[in-house]
């Protein structure tokens, strides 16, 4: 396996889908099956090639780093690498994209060549986003994700697809634009100090004055908050998810939202530690509002995709809460939550896509009693729903538990409010589940519904396995995150000390009593 350690795995993982794009472009018209399997093959190959990334000996620093000159005049480099923060998101991209491709085989019937090409471009761009360590390169990949998604929604979407796609792009572009300004700001500032750089590792090591941090932090934070999305920047999400084709929703919820959380963790916390600490209470407050508000809004939805989409606001609120608790445990929890949300919500969108494909409606009122007709579907939906609700022993619980553990350390009131989210999640999820599956199967068209096909099972089983794997044995996975999380909270020592002081008063009493006893 020695050659793997030296192989440019990341670049291969980025390049493979692009290679697939080129081949797909050459597939003659009408050879749809070839096209589908070609897309699936290259997408899956990219996943397989990224698996050895996990074998990195040390996740504290970056491994598999590749550093080539790209635009030397601008000091922009092709600089990529992974650490414990990014490796799981790279793997999640690799896991979800082939499944999204696979799920599209029967759903997409027009302009298939363009469709699969866009999915592959998106995979490549996502891997790039999660691995780029040069800010210009990061920005390039970040924007490169946007365009395929815009087209996916706009062309293959349903209903108000053009409105949704435009809204999605405008929202994101506003954020990206400010982020670009901030990137230039960083470059100019480091230039003024004699070392102009877009290199993340350099910027992390050379702190900015607090005032400058504030402005640049805000610019970055807005871009990431929109992407996550954090209340009140979330209204693009419901429209985009609802109108997107199934695969689009899966990637959007599973991966694109993670770009926001990842950005916070990768760039905001290490480069702007003082500003992060200063804004942490505000951001945590917004996170808790997102958790509760998102859940309450979900309870009023009658469109199954819209409901699942808005549940992301609530779940990603937990991610933000964990990140901005600036607590090591909370940060680890946030990463776990990102991955488990990607898996569970990705699966929920796949599941919603299954009945949408059969019935061409997303209205909950159009369903009911499906448990009878589709038992396999029922069982997988049940497990996925409970993973999303955060039932212990399934993936959702681990993240929420760690996040709350971290957050209670930072602000016990907010943590307590956030914990209410676990009640509200159950309320809207179970209500939705009942309307789809329970009761009498009144509509004749529902009675004849076919259960999951082998291909659909193949899309869902890997995700279900992951839900159990993370939920039952989170240790190896959380362990691999820790060193990088420790580094990401660059101010960790300072901030963690501060939060130790803020421990509940009783802790000292107990501790001192123990001391006395000894």
């Amino acid at each position, binding site marked *: 396996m020695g050659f793997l350690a030296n192989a440019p795995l990341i670049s291969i993982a980025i390049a493979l889908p692009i290679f697939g794009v080129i081949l797909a472009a050459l597939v003659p018209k009408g050879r749809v099956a070839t096209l589908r399997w070609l897309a699936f093959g290259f997408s899956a190959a990219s996943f397989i090639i990224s698996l050895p990334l996990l074998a990195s000996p040390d996740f504290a620093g970056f491994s598999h780093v590749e550093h080539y000159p790209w635009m030397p005049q601008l000091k922009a480099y092709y600089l990529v690498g992974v650490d414990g923060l990014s490796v799981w998101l790279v793997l999640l991209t690799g896991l979800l994209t082939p499944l999204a491709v696979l799920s599209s085989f029967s759903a997409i019937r027009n302009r298939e060549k363009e469709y699969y090409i866009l999915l592959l471009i998106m995979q490549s761009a996502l891997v790039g986003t999660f691995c780029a360590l040069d800010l210009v390169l990061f920005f390039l990949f970040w924007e490169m994700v946007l365009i395929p998604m815009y087209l996916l929604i706009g062309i293959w979407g349903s209903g108000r697809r053009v409105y949704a796609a435009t809204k999605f792009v405008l929202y994101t572009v506003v954020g990206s634009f400010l982020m670009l300004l901030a990137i230039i700001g960083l470059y100019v500032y480091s230039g003024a100090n004699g070392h102009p750089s877009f290199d993340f590792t350099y910027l992390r090591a050379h702190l900015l004055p607090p005032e400058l941090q504030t402005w640049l932090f805000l610019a970055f934070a807005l871009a990431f908050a929109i992407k996550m999305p954090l209340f009140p920047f979330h209204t693009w999400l419901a429209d985009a998810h609802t109108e997107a084709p199934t695969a689009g929703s899966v990637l959007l919820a599973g991966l694109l939202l993670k770009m926001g959380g990842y950005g916070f963790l990768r760039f905001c916390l290490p480069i702007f530690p003082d500003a992060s600490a200063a804004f942490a209470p505000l951001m945590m407050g917004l996170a808790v509002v997102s958790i509760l508000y998102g859940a309450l809004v979900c309870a009023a939805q009658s469109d199954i995709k819209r409901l699942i989409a808005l549940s992301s606001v609530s779940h990603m609120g937990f991610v933000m809460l964990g990140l901005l608790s600036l607590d090591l445990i909370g940060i680890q929890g946030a990463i776990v939550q990102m991955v488990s949300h990607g898996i569970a919500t990705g699966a929920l969108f796949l599941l919603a896509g299954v009945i949408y494909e059969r019935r061409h409606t997303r209205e909950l009122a159009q369903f009911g009693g499906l448990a009878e007709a589709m038992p396999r579907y029922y069982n997988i939906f049940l497990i996925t729903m409970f993973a999303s609700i955060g039932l212990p022993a399934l993936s959702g619980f681990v993240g929420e538990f760690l996040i*709350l553990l971290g957050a209670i350390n930072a602000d016990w009131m907010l943590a307590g409010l956030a914990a209410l989210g676990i009640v509200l999640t159950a309320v809207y999820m179970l209500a939705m589940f009942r309307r789809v599956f329970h009761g009498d199967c009144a509509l004749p068209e529902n009675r004849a519904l076919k259960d999951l096909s082998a291909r659909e099972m193949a899309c869902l089983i890997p995700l279900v396995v992951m839900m159990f794997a993370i939920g039952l044995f*989170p240790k190896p996975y959380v362990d691999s995150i820790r060193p990088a999380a420790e580094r990401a909270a660059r101010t960790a020592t300072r901030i963690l000390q501060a939060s130790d002081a803020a421990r509940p008063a009783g802790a000292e009493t107990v501790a001192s009593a123990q001391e006395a006893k000894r």
Partner: protein
Amino acid sequence: MLGHIYLAIIPPLAGTILLGFFGKMMPRKAAGILACGAILLSFAVALAAFIEYVRAGGVSPEPYGAHVGVLAPWLAIPGFELNLSFQADALSLLMALTVTFVSFLIFVYSSGYMAHDEGYPRYFAYLNLFVAMMLTLVLAGNLVVMFIGWEGVGLCSYLLIGFWYRKKAPPIAGIKAFIVNRIGDFGFLIGILILFWLLGSVDFTTMRMRLSMLEHGAPLILTMAGLFLFMGAMGKSAQFPLHVWLPDAMEGPTPVSALIHAATMVTAGVFLVARMGFLFSLSQPALLAIACIGAFTALFAASIAIVQYDIKRVLAYSTVSQLGLMFLAAGLGAYWIAVFHLFTHAFFKALLFLGSGSVIHAMGGEQDMRKMGGLAKRMPQTYWQFLIGAMAISGIPLLAGFYSKDEILFAAFSARNALFPQAGMALFVVGAFTALLTAFYMFRQVQLVFLTPARWDAAKVHPHEAPPSMAIPCWVLAAGSIFAGYIGLPAMFASLLHIPNALEPFLAPALPGGHSSVPHALHAASLASEAMVASLSALLALAGLGLAFYLYRARSGLTEKLRQSFAAPYRLLFNKYYIDELNNAAIVSPGKALCSRLSQSVDLGIIDGAVNFIALAIGALGYALRPLQTGFIRNYAWYFSVGAVLLIILLWLRAGG
């Protein structure tokens, strides 16, 4: 075996997986045997561990007589280690034995009861999962593993209440159960988090060791942690005001009501309080709160039970009431008595539910006691079983319930709470009155179902005795309802009958003593007061019995008159104090309104409206500026020169200034 007690969880878990994947392909008989066999195996493991434990005679590698086995590490964070650890000690072994034994009987009963249901394998898959989760709960070595089991049994409860999902009511009842439990679990989770921060561990033995170093009571934060944990117990054990889900849970199949919603799962809250007794005993306010909520719930639920007509609802409210009594005992610091009553209750309440299941089965699904009567002649076996159960729960002397209930009353009678010395007497009075009501509603039920003249249409209904698969488990439970009390006899009876109290010393290492005055008070108390409480408790049981006999047998017209003259209180009780209506009016409806308001007005209206407004405004600005783009060079040249002139003026001004 003791270090690997988690082995007991594996058979039912394997059973779930096998039944889940292959259940539909199996013949029914095979599915039933597989399910029952898995539980029997689990029972054997628990029994073997129990024997080993008793043989070891209290020698254990961990303090407090605990044997801890780690299955796998779950999380390791600097400062915290969290393992999938399982603990065998007196308390968990007793619980595991009770759970597997009662489960086995109810599984056998179910194989007859559910024989004609098309969801047979699904039913047993869920039921196996339930036992696996319940064992996880009781055998857990730390709070997080316990929480896994805790929410796991909640999941099974949800699935089994809504088992008949085609009907309208069961799925709704299932959701209600899960959500009310989740409200409790919210508290449980917060409690776990606080303890994590406070003690750096949630392993039971470690927490107990660290807390035992506290000398002067507990700081406020410990009381908070305890009360949050108790909130979880209130949800699971259906204590007021989180009791609302349990009566609705009767929508599930009756054996499920017997197993989950009477004998095992709902007692998990009591188990939690006993397990965490070392925490609660440090906080008098927390204990007092537990005792008061328990006592209130006991009386509250019993008063509802006396006027209900649904055969299962009476039993459901009775369960809520009995759980209240257990909390009353636990709140007095008499944890072993709470566990004792939990143990005896498991037998007679399971028996009563299974008996009611046989009746419902025989009556073709009828649950209204007004349409029953005279069944003693048609179903003599069931009648005798039900009667034994009713006598046991009512506290008729010599049966199991008498002893455990007597201990609770005596504990209350002799308790001296440090915060509020009169509390013990008040709790005693409430407990005694509850005992009276219990005997009344139970014998009212016996009268209405079995003894009063038949009120059913003989042409349509043909009541028949239950098949052996259903009758035999009931006889075993009936035997338990009689004899289970003899493992923990009160001091007076113990010396009278020469049967020592085996339970209290057995449980002693697992439960805290010393901090509460009660156990000592119990031993020091004079024989006279003990005899007095015992005879009072026997009298109350007989009074309840007599009253029921008088009202429903001797003077059968009297109930109607009473109902009319006390119309308002009757309506209040009949409608369960309107708690469901209150919840709907105060929480559910406003909640729904809030959600749709947020979704419509705030989300789509204000927030999205603002976004669209900005977009529109920018669009309009663009539209307004569009005429500037004429495409004529001369216009652009004109803009250009004006701009240049302005710029020069600007620069000149700045340079000048």
